[in-house]
């Protein structure tokens, strides 16, 4: 709506998907999966079982930073993914849960890994006739949790300068699995920091390891941009700080249970 109003895009026709809410607004666990219908709103996610489960505490982080109540009541999860925007908070979190997306068209349906879906700014690896119907991820094991951190100058506002989400499974203080996603690693869409993940996997999550991951490993794979909102240096510095905080938050979440 905002892009149309600002004349950035001028579509020949607009399809209102809201009536599909009858079928596609679910948020449920089923057969070892968590399944979210594309028309579920952020508000609905924020009052679902996800925000009460310590393993999915990242959703609760997301909810306390996601826009305003009146945006949350309209914003859908499908739209968050479809926007293919670096600052799509829900998408960044879903990347760390290794989610996959169900695309449906008259030709049938297919599942695509969320991290294979983005090609560029507002560009998706899908046909325009394909509808995002659902996003799902496998339930995560015990001893794991999620966190999302977003830096902005004021609450209730749209665009973070940097957003990071982390999923980790930590057992006996060793990182069994970890997935890290940022609003951007270099390209203009949310992506995972795979080199930093690889470095952390299998290591003990000590102060030194976290420090090294944030200050030595992350900057090697991350390229930030400068624009009117913040400089590249500032964004990189924020990325390091937020990643450190996110890892520490997860560590204490897993310890706290």
């Amino acid at each position: 709506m905002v892009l149309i109003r600002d004349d950035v895009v001028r579509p020949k026709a607009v399809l209102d998907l809201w009536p599909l809410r009858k079928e596609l607004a679910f948020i449920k666990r089923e057969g070892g999966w968590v399944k979210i219908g594309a028309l579920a709103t952020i508000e609905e996610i924020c009052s679902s079982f996800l925000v009460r489960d310590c393993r999915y505490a990242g959703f609760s982080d997301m909810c306390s930073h996601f826009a305003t109540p009146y945006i949350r009541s309209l914003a859908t999860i499908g739209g968050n993914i479809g926007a293919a925007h670096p600052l799509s908070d829900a998408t960044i979190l879903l990347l760390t849960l290794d989610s996959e997306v169900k695309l449906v068209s008259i030709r049938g349906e297919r599942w695509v890994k969320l991290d294979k879906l983005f090609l560029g700014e507002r560009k998706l690896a899908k046909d325009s006739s394909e509808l995002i119907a659902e996003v799902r991820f496998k339930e995560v094991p015990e001893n794991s949790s999620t966190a999302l951190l977003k830096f902005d100058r004021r609450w209730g506002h749209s665009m973070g300068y940097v957003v990071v989400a982390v999923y980790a499974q930590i057992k006996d203080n060793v990182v069994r699995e970890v997935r890290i996603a940022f609003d951007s690693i270099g390209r203009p869409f949310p992506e995972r920091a795979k080199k930093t993940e690889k470095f952390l996997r299998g290591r003990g999550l000590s102060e030194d390891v976290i420090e090294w991951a944030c200050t030595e490993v992350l900057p090697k794979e991350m390229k930030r941009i400068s624009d009117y909102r913040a400089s590249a240096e500032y964004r990189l510095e924020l990325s390091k700080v937020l990643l450190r905080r996110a890892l520490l938050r997860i560590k204490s979440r897993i310890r706290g249970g």
Partner: protein
Amino acid sequence: MSNSLSEDRYPYIKVKLSVNGRDYEVSVRPYERLIDVLRYKLGLTSVKEGCGRGECGACVVIMDGKLVPSCLVLAVRANNKKILTLEGLAPEGKLHAIQKAFLDVMSVQCGYCLPGVILATKWLLDKNPSPTDQEIKEVLGGQLCRCGSYLRFVKAVKLAVKYLKEGKVYFDIQELMSPP
């Protein structure tokens, strides 16, 4: 919206709305926004356009119990929905407790943001009759006030909570105007 759209290619669609307890049937273009229908077709000018892009909260209305920015809702999406605007908050000749509270603490400067702020308060109190300061701030954080009356808004919401708890929902405007 854009003049360059050829109007004839976009036929009128009939939309049924229940606004402030009254039923309406209006013909709208598919691209028309709810805010335009409320303001220009129904004359409900309490619905203000601030930013037109979901950032200021001046245009919020309560639609089927949800707080929504009417600038981001297509009119066709509001078909068969119940909508509350500020005009419908109290019966003719009365003020709602929330309105009275906002007047009592003298929170109104230019007043442009107030319809949105009051409806956001109504939405908050309907689901949470005793909000904490933090909860009030989280909801009103979405309502921009150019005049910066924010601290008084929090005071006003707490006073409204008090009135409502005492069972005082409506106040007679005549009585309020006449000297004690």
